[in-house]
């Protein structure tokens, strides 16, 4: 049986890959993909903790239900984020976040 810490280690590695993508990529779509990786790492953690803790009664579903809600949030975030990227691209012909600086003082 795979111990719990291996799931957590893989999730941590995936999260840090996502952090690197968010911090370093220039394209806004690539940054959003990094955010998706981070959300998935959190989902692995939630399900692993749920599975390795006591699960007996149907209402002790915290990890399971939280993962479903994180999936919902991720879907909403991707839809709105990509809509914003497309609008910025249409107005400024650029998908580089540093160039969307109209609100800069």
């Amino acid at each position, binding site marked *: 049986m795979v111990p719990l810490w291996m799931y957590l*280690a893989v999730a941590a590695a995936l999260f840090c890959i996502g952090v690197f993508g968010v911090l370093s*990529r220039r394209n806004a779509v690539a940054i959003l993909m990094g955010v998706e990786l981070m959300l998935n790492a959190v989902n692995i953690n939630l399900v692993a903790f749920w*599975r390795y803790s006591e699960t007996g009664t149907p209402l002790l579903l915290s990890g399971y239900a939280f993962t479903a809600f994180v999936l919902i949030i991720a879907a909403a975030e991707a839809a709105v984020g990509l809509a914003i990227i497309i609008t910025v691209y249409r107005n400024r012909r650029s998908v580089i976040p540093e160039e969307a600086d109209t609100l800069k003082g």
Partner: protein
Amino acid sequence: MELNAVTIGFFVFSILTLGGGIGVVTTRNLFQGTIWLMVSLFGVAGYFVLLSAPFLAAVQVLVYIGAIAILITFAVMLTRSVTRINERYIRTIPSFVASLALFLVLLFGITVPIFGDYPTEMAPTVVMTTRDLGVALVDGNGYVVPFLLASVLLTAAMIGAIFIARDEES
């Protein structure tokens, strides 16, 4: 740790997940990056199967690989014509150092049992089914309020996305 189907599956899905993730953040062509993202998300769906959450695995494939990856593909195709991005990265070295440091901190926290020992075995009996999840989502003692809020959030996000991405001239 003996070598059985679960262990082999764990390592296969680890390779898929982490390899896909590395492909996402390193590839130059964003379209290929989307394919790598699909590979990585498929690995995560495999983890859900190993952790006896098959419903979440199905939702992962449907929502992430089916919907979000397609959405990202569309965004890549709609924004690629004038992409004059020559270099992939900005702040490469600080980002790499920061994420590596974060990983080491997390790994330290994971492997050193500060908060007591980890359970090494899964909980033996799982009576949870998709039916139980459905009951819990509409149960007054369960998750009915977050469930309703999530519905409102999805509606608001859908309307907002349509409104934001709408063409002004048309």
